[in-house]
């Protein structure tokens, strides 16, 4: 194609400068072919589809501010005496890392602002990922073909947690040092290799002289590097799969309805970056975060009450706090179950939500592509599982902040701990049952609405004196939207003895699957959506009530 056009445009010599640059780039990068597929790419409009953008932009803000901070931060544990401008620290011994953080906060103009933006953006980044992940979960957007992207997103969430944790540790203040001390205790609890791991991690005994420098390279290089790669892969897949959409008139599994990237989304998404950055800057002007000058430099023999990690690690803190102190001694060895079990449950909590899509696809056996999102009510078992998971997460967060709950609600810390111990097992089950019931109730309401129309609130008196409420029939758009969802039939294994009386061998996994399938799609787990026949029967009669 270019061979045909290039001589022509050259002969005219009038091509605008921008086009010339584009031609130059196309000759080397093939940008025209790329743009052909993507410039008018369609994105559907829905606020919940922008949650991922919040994450992306706060991630970019974190990188920008983080680079600035590295210009002033000294990742060193050398002990120095402070003689900077913050009076209540004069003459105190502290590590260079802590001192340089004080300098960033009090002597570098704007340093405090950048530090606060960096930290607030990190909290919002993780919160955004959490909500984004839940949006994807509850709408079933993780189904084929997006399972890999679900995993990429999950990995980003987990890596984000650890990047946050290492960053929280860098200023070497009393709070972060307490967190590191906890980490050392957790590593020590690992059977057989724990002490070795700890000594390798800290370059000897805790705290040693090395861990700030080591955490620094993990925090600024290793983890963000991996995350950047995953973010790019995540975005490429979003483009490649094209965005999902909610059911509605004109929206099918084979199309995507919305506005084009150029110009609408260029402006909306580009503008949204500035909006996110702007909000983060304003929040950082208004509210302080991690005021390390109040917290003081780390000393292993000092501590403050209210020692908590940032919120995204709060659920692991809860696990640690409510675990009973089990310890088993045998043959000269100690198995520190009180620390090691929470350490093992921590990844399990995360993995349980990560593997869910694969369990669901195994139960349904559905290998088709899904681009139309589910309303949460139409997948009651999935929704109930998600709510149960969030409940568990929240219960553990309560456990992680048990001391603050105690002081602010005038409760006993021991009572809260016991509450969390019990709720850890009970609350998710209750949440599951309640959510499923609510979903079924909403399905019933949808069914009523389709068959009998919307309650108009207008009361009519019939000639013979009876009062009825007028139900307005739904438009075809609404009827379609409310009936567009799919309903699976439960899987039957069939009789174990065939017609010739020969016993058929049914695999255990097959039985489990049939059980699960029944739980998902059996009569008690979904309300059959109205059929055309039902609708016609009702609407052809006059009984609109």
């Amino acid at each position, binding site marked *: 194609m270019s061979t045909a056009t290039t001589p022509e445009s050259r002969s005219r010599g009038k091509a605008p400068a921008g086009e010339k640059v584009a031609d130059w780039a196309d000759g080397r990068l093939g940008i025209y072919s790329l743009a052909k597929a993507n410039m008018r790419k369609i994105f559907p409009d829905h606020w919940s589809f922008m949650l991922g953008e919040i994450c992306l932009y706060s991630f970019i803000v974190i990188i920008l501010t983080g680079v600035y901070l590295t210009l002033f931060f000294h990742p060193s544990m050398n002990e120095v005496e402070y003689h900077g401008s913050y009076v209540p620290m004069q003459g105190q011994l502290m590590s260079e890392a802590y001192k340089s953080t004080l300098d960033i906060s009090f002597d570098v103009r704007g340093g405090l602002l950048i530090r606060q933006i960096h930290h607030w953006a990190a909290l919002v980044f993780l919160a955004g990922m959490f909500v984004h992940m839940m949006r994807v979960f509850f709408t079933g957007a993780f189904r084929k073909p997006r399972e890999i992207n679900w995993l990429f997103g999950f990995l980003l969430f987990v890596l984000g947690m650890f990047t946050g944790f290492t960053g929280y540790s860098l200023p070497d203040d009393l709070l972060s040092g307490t967190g590191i*001390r906890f980490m050392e205790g957790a590593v020590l609890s690992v*059977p057989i290799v724990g002490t070795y791991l700890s000594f390798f991690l800290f370059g000897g005994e805790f705290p040693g002289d090395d861990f700030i420098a080591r955490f620094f390279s993990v925090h600024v290089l290793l983890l963000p590097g991996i995350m950047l790669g995953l973010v790019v892969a995540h975005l490429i897949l979003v483009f490649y799969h094209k965005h999902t959409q909610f059911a509605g008139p004109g929206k099918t599994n084979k199309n995507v309805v919305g506005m084009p990237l150029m110009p609408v989304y260029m402006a909306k998404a580009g503008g949204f970056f500035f909006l996110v950055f702007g909000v983060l*800057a304003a929040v950082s002007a208004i509210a302080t975060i991690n005021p390390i000058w109040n917290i003081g430099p780390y000393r292993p023999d000092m501590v403050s009450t209210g020692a908590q990690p940032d919120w995204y690690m709060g659920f692991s803190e809860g696990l640690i706090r409510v675990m009973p102190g089990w310890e088993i001694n045998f043959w000269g060895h100690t198995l520190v179950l009180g620390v090691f079990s929470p350490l093992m449950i921590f990844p399990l909590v995360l993995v349980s939500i990560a593997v869910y899509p694969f369990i669901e696809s195994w139960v349904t056996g559905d290998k088709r592509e899904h681009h139309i999102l589910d309303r949460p009510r139409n997948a009651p078992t999935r929704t109930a599982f998600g709510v149960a998971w969030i409940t568990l997460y929240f219960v553990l967060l309560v456990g992680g902040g048990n001391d603050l709950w105690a002081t602010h609600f005038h409760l006993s810390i021991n009572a809260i701990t016991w509450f969390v111990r019990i709720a850890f097992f009970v609350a998710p089950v209750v949440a599951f049952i309640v959510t499923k019931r609510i979903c079924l109730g909403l399905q019933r309401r949808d069914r009523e609405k389709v068959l009998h129309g919307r309650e108009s609130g207008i009361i009519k008196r019939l000639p013979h004196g009876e009062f009825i409420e007028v139900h307005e029939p739904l438009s075809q758009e609404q009827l379609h939207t409310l009936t567009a969802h799919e309903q699976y039939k439960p899987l039957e294994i069939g009789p174990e003895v065939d017609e010739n009386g020969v016993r058929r061998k049914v695999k255990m996994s097959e039985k489990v699957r049939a059980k699960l399938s029944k739980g998902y799609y059996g009569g008690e787990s979904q309300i059959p959506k109205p059929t055309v026949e039902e609708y016609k029967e009702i609407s052809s009669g006059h009984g609109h009530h």
Partner: protein
Amino acid sequence: MSSQDIPEENLPTAQDTAPGSVKLADEKNPFADPGLPPHEHRIQDLDERAAKRSERTVALLFTVSMLATVGFIASYVTIPVDSSVYIFTLGHISALNFALGMTLGVALFAIGAGAVHWARTLMSDHEIADERHPIEASPEVKAKVMDDFRQGAKESVLGRRKLIRNTMFGALALFPLSGVVLLRDLGPLPGTKLRETLWSRGKLLVNMNTNEPLRPSDIIVGSLAFAKPEGLDEHDHGFMTEIAKAALMLVRIQPDDIKDKQALEWSHEGILAYSKICTHVGCPISLYEQQTHHALCPCHQSTFDLSDGAKVIFGPAGHALPQLRIGVNDEGYLEALGDFDEPVGPAFWERG
């Protein structure tokens, strides 16, 4: 387990009917997809004055952003880094931080708001439907790829030349070991380091606050004091590592109230010296309640009864706080009568 086992009829019927076919089916299927609703015009599409208003709003927002950036630079230059200002509800805050943050926030937000307002009111809002194409390759493409792969594999002679294959796998499997070996010098081996502290027989207990050696009379019933071994100074290089193990919490309880016999024996006139490092994960534990004699850990709420050998009475810690045996030297100062007889701090595999 594969999808082939699932009977086709268990999967729901395909949800989508092609739009357009609907008009015919209208009578038969009231739930059918009516297709994209017709486009409706915005005020700005019909009324040029409204469009002009939108344009002015966008321009105003971009102008506000420019002014805010000027404000940012002006604040940076004029406001001293240490000046403080009182802002209602926010308290006494740094004037520079507030000015920079607000101007930067406004500058950025106004750009974003302008762009979005422009997109929402002036750019075309026609909804477009884009076709999706199945991600799976067609059978022909798949067959071609498989053929190519087989051809390539055959030409590599890897399948035939087993020797090459096996040695290559061997080499690839071994070389990462170099990387693992290189990690060895990350730290020394633990040895018995976790079992030893600076305490030894005759070391005086030095008050953390005053750096003076303690006498029994300094510690009264109901008081709480912290001690370090004599000779350990916070300017020393290894101070952090040593204090992380040697930190001591001193309380005095009426000897009659001390329930544990060994604890009483190891105390001096009711003065008990316990490790300040929690046996759970190593937080300094010192929330001492002088009436109940309970010590609570602020990190994970392990609770120890200091009147009963510092046994765990609540929370996640697995064993009692180690006690240091103390006595008094000839000059009347408190001294250690040896090191702790068990490792201080968090438990570990070799602890036993």
